[in-house]
């Protein structure tokens, strides 16, 4: 079976949708030469009107995409740097997201925002290493963080076909993942539906994006100690697959979430709140996150120190198994 990388899967999904739907076009910085490789080969296939290179005018081109969507097109915007989403938060949260309701359902804004390389890219320091998916979930923008090549393909397809704004974070730590994939089996993955990546009986670990790899590694390690870990990947941050998570936790009755957000009001906090309201647990749940208010420092050891990692996760799993707070 051929290997497919996560980044190539995104590229393939984008190319397939451009080919299948004339209304789809991609815009962003350096997309013609494919600086991030997300758009590799697409300019030559589809030309300058479907692969539109923009000046560094993030706010205007984000609203430009909203306008193009109101006029019937399906724009896909690439942001090379996750922190640029702070610059265009108004244009997504306050413009694109609000048009449907404010107009009484007269229009739709099917724009997809793709960040190939979100979160820490070691050495990129404070203003290039954010992972603001929790912010978009908070304001109700559909938000997805794929963890595998097949999901990257399928979720990007669904995001583009969705009639609302969707932000897709492709974590830097996941871009290089390569899986054996039968290309014929690639298909859309519905938004809002999670996936059990590994079945287990003793504890459910919720992980997104690149952190699914850490959760699986932790599960492997703990299996040797006789601990059975279930790994649940919600795939979509918002809307969260609460029912899918509930079904997993009903079996394991213990819960840990690992989340590359800052701690306060992050995705991990939301999972724990849902657990407090809905789940019957045998031990207090735990979250492994970036620290409160974290800014990623430059030096590699400092960068790693504030990211949620495997050791923190193992400690948290042991903690819930022992029923300790």
């Amino acid at each position: 079976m051929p290997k497919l990388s996560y980044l190539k899967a995104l590229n393939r999904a984008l190319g397939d949708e451009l080919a299948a739907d004339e209304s789809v076009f991609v815009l962003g910085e350096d997309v013609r030469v494919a600086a991030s490789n997300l758009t590799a080969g697409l300019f030559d296939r589809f030309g300058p009107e479907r692969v539109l290179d923009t000046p560094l005018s993030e706010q205007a081109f984000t609203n430009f995409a909203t306008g193009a969507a109101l006029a019937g097109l399906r724009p896909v915007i690439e942001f090379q740097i996750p922190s640029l989403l702070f610059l265009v938060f108004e244009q997504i949260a306050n413009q694109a997201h609000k048009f449907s309701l404010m107009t009484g359902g007269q229009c739709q804004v099917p724009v997809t925002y793709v960040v190939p390389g979100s979160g820490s890219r070691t050495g990129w320091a404070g203003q290039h290493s954010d992972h603001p998916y929790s912010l978009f979930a908070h304001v109700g923008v559909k938000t997805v963080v794929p963890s595998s090549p097949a999901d990257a393909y399928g979720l990007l397809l669904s995001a583009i076909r969705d009639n609302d704004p969707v932000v897709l974070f492709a974590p830097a730590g996941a871009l290089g993942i390569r899986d054996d994939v039968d290309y014929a089996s690639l298909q859309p993955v519905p938004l809002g539906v999670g996936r059990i990546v590994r079945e287990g009986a003793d504890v459910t670990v919720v992980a997104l994006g690149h952190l699914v790899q850490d959760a699986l590694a932790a599960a492997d390690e703990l299996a040797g100690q006789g601990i059975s870990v279930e790994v649940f990947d919600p795939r979509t941050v918002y809307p969260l697959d609460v029912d899918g998570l509930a079904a997993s936790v009903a079996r394991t009755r213990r819960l840990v979430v690992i989340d590359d957000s800052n701690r306060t009001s992050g995705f991990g906090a939301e999972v724990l709140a849902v657990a407090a309201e809905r789940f019957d647990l045998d031990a207090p749940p735990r979250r492994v996150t970036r620290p409160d208010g974290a800014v990623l420092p430059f030096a590699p050891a400092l960068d790693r120190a504030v990211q949620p990692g495997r050791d923190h996760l193992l400690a948290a799993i042991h903690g819930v198994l022992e029923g300790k707070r």
Partner: protein
Amino acid sequence: MTAEHLYRTVRLIRRFEERAMDFVRSGEIVGGIHPYVGQEAIAAGVCAALRPDDVITSTHRGHGHVLAKGVDPARMLAELMGRENGLNRGRGGSMHAADFGLGILGANAIVGAAGSIATGAAWAYQRQGKDVVAVSFFGDGAMNEGMLLEAFNLAVLWRVPVVFVCENNGYATTMPVRSAVAGSITGRARAFGMPAFTVDGQDPEKVLAATTAAVSRARSGRGPTFLECTTYRFDAHHTFEHRARLNYRSTEELSTGRSRDPVEIQGERLAADVRAAVDAEIEALLDAAAGVALGGAHPDPAAALEFLYASPEVNR
């Protein structure tokens, strides 16, 4: 385009706004409005230069734009009252009026935002083979939000069929334009390589002439034009000023500013009997509109988040 048509539009907007302010005072309209009184000639002149399939984006002070583009005053008034029979089914209110069937892509409450939305829409229509022109209305205050200047750049670079209409009424809320805009408004537009003209925004016929040329240029593929329409806001920035008087315009200035009234300027071009007939027709139209609006149902609170998503299958 006849003088009578332009007069009908400015008069309709004036009387709509006066009645709307009465409904603010009586409590039928909550949240207040940003009255367009004094600026009517701009909406009337600009929209008279457009085809029905041309599109506009509007502002927080947008009632005049949407009325001039052909919105039913009854549905507009119902929207201001938050009724189910309003333009946006009571979900938008004064600052977000939209009627996509009439090419009104929404009024926007962030002053510099809509220029880039209009630019994107115009580019998209052109790409789909339609010779539609977009007009983006905004005020002098928006000239200091960077995303609008970014939009000028994109529109010129990509020769987008859009016309930028800056309504310079002298104030961004209470901030005088002379204290807020370094250089000049048209100078900024010209810096992007765009033709820019200052137009008497109190005279609908002058606005119509300037817009007709700009629209023709856009439709023939020669790119955007910038029109600075100088005007004066006769009333408050927002009706909250009716209760909390803010001291930023002198009595002398208000008197001078109000001396060039677009309703009078255009009205004097009509025979007295024609003008009186138009006035009577508008009062009857607005009487009927008030009846329709006041009779509209209030939306059901259970449907407060209806329309939040266009793909509701993931709405949970």
